[in-house]
């Protein structure tokens, strides 16, 4: 199968931390808690746990397992199944690349907020709270009227983006060994910061009100298809699957090492982090509701609005330690996001390029970091947020889900789910039964198709995404990356089998 020694994780713990670091990200804080609140609390959590077990864990086992089996990153895995399938591995590589170009810009904003939080630059008290939105859109983004008005580069963001890419380069240019060791620190610190935020949040007035909104059960919501859609989509997006990187991370596992238990630990740790982060978010939401005497519907509790407006409002209104909590919150966001960013860069893009073109790690890393930084400058313009939103819709929604469907179908039906299961069971701590085959062959692709049709095509074909006049870019990029995947497939593989 392979003739050259593949790079290896320095130990099991470092692999687990690297995998958890890749899975946990900004969405654990700014997507999950709000979706729980918005979809019936406990009802959503039941659907989410079911989704985790029948979609997330099997999908992760498949990506780790195939990477380990072929000892190659995603394109090499599908090339191993059959040359004509290599494009199935390249398509998510392009998605990972596009995602990391804008994900790092969000980290650049976070980096700027770490500095701004040290002085609570948007202001303390009621006036600061009222100005938090203007600070984000006016000072940080200097936002223009629309996507066609790009305006000029926002230089503080450009500098922060450059620093982010330098950090990513330094972490990944020596490969899995350093990534694993850095991940232990990054993930541990992110958890410590979250713990501080939860403790502070639970001591704020209004916390009970917020937590009731977060956790109050509405079990009748289980009969609502939108709740299942929300739960499945959250599982699809939260584990960093469908982005090529987990194949590469799996390829760095020794051929006789466990896969299934590592997939369980990674998935459940990621979801436990999400659940825990909800306490930090909704305690602050409850506090803002009480401090400003507004209903929960008036508090933006998800996405950019939560991170860059709602939480700063909470920081302004806190009775003490405002700057400290602000810095800790943005540090936690930065660390959670950084581990996902270097995962996307290395596992998603650099490792496949090394495998395909036989380039050295240092050269591949430098090329990817520089090109991604240059593309990221688009999102550093005054109109950058609009483009970020559209590319995110293309890559992190359509790209992730469609390539996930393709990968599970090709592995399940062409390579053989049963064959992979037998390979996994030979060395794994937890054996999986024949039921797993049908999850990979039918349930996972069907669930992902359900999400992409229900939440994507049904909406975006009826009307342009978010009303953007430039929403055609979503379909254009999907088509262009698909064509590029076939082009890369046609290029002769120069890298040695094993990728070193």
């Amino acid at each position, binding site marked *: 199968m392979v003739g050259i020694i593949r790079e290896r994780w320095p130990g099991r713990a470092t692999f687990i931390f690297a995998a958890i670091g890749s899975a946990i990200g900004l969405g654990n804080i700014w997507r999950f808690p709000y979706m729980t609140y918005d979809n019936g609390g406990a009802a959503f959590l039941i659907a989410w746990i079911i989704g985790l077990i029948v979609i997330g864990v099997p999908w992760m086992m498949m990506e780790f397992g195939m990477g380990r089996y072929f000892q190659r990153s995603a394109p090499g895995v599908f090339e191993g199944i059959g040359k004509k399938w290599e494009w199935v591995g390249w398509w998510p590589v392009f998605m990972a690349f596009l995602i990391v170009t804008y994900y790092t810009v969000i980290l650049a904003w976070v980096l700027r907020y770490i500095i701004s939080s040290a002085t609570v630059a948007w202001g303390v008290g009621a006036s600061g709270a009222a100005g938090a939105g203007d600070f984000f859109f006016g000072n940080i983004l200097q936002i223009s009227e629309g996507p066609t008005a790009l305006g000029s580069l926002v230089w503080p963001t450009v500098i922060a983006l450059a620093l982010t890419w330098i950090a990513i380069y330094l972490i990944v240019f020596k490969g899995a060994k350093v990534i694993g060791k850095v991940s232990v620190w990054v993930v541990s610190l992110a958890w410590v910061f979250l713990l501080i935020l939860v403790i502070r949040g639970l001591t704020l007035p209004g916390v009970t009100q917020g937590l009731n909104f977060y956790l109050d059960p509405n079990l009748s919501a289980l009969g609502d298809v939108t709740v299942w859609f929300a739960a499945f989509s959250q599982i699809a997006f939260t584990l960093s699957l469908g982005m090529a990187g987990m194949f590469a991370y799996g390829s760095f596992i020794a051929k006789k090492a466990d896969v299934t238990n590592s997939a*369980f630990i990674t998935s459940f740790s990621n979801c436990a982090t999400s659940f825990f982060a909800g306490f930090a978010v909704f305690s602050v939401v409850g506090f803002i509701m009480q401090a400003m005497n507004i209903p929960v519907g008036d508090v933006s509790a998800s996405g950019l609005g939560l991170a860059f407006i709602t939480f700063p409002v909470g920081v302004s209104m806190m009775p003490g330690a405002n700057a400290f909590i602000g810095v800790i919150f943005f540090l936690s966001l930065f660390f959670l996001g950084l581990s996902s960013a270097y995962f996307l860069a290395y596992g998603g893009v650099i490792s496949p390029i090394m495998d395909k073109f036989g380039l050295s790690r240092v050269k591949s890393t430098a090329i990817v970091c520089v090109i991604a930084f240059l593309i990221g400058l688009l999102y550093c313009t005054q109109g950058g947020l609009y483009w970020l939103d559209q590319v995110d819709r293309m890559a992190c929604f359509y790209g992730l889900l469609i390539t996930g469907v393709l990968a599970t179908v090709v592995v399940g039906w062409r390579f053989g789910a049963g064959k992979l299961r037998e390979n996994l069971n030979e060395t794994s701590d937890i054996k999986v039964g024949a039921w797993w085959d049908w999850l990979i062959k039918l349930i996972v692709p069907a669930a992902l198709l359900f999400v992409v049709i229900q939440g994507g095509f049904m909406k975006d074909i009826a009307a342009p995404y978010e009303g953007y006049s430039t929403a055609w870019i979503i379909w254009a990029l999907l088509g262009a990356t698909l064509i590029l995947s076939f082009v890369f497939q046609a290029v002769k593989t120069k890298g040695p089998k094993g990728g070193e």
Partner: protein
Amino acid sequence: MTTGAIITLIAMCVVFIGALGFCFSRLGKGGEWED
């Protein structure tokens, strides 16, 4: 907190602690980490 919210909290803690506890109890029962 409401009774429902407290029950949800306890149930989720049981799920996560139970699942991760089971996984960690199985560590090392399968293959070898080194080549």
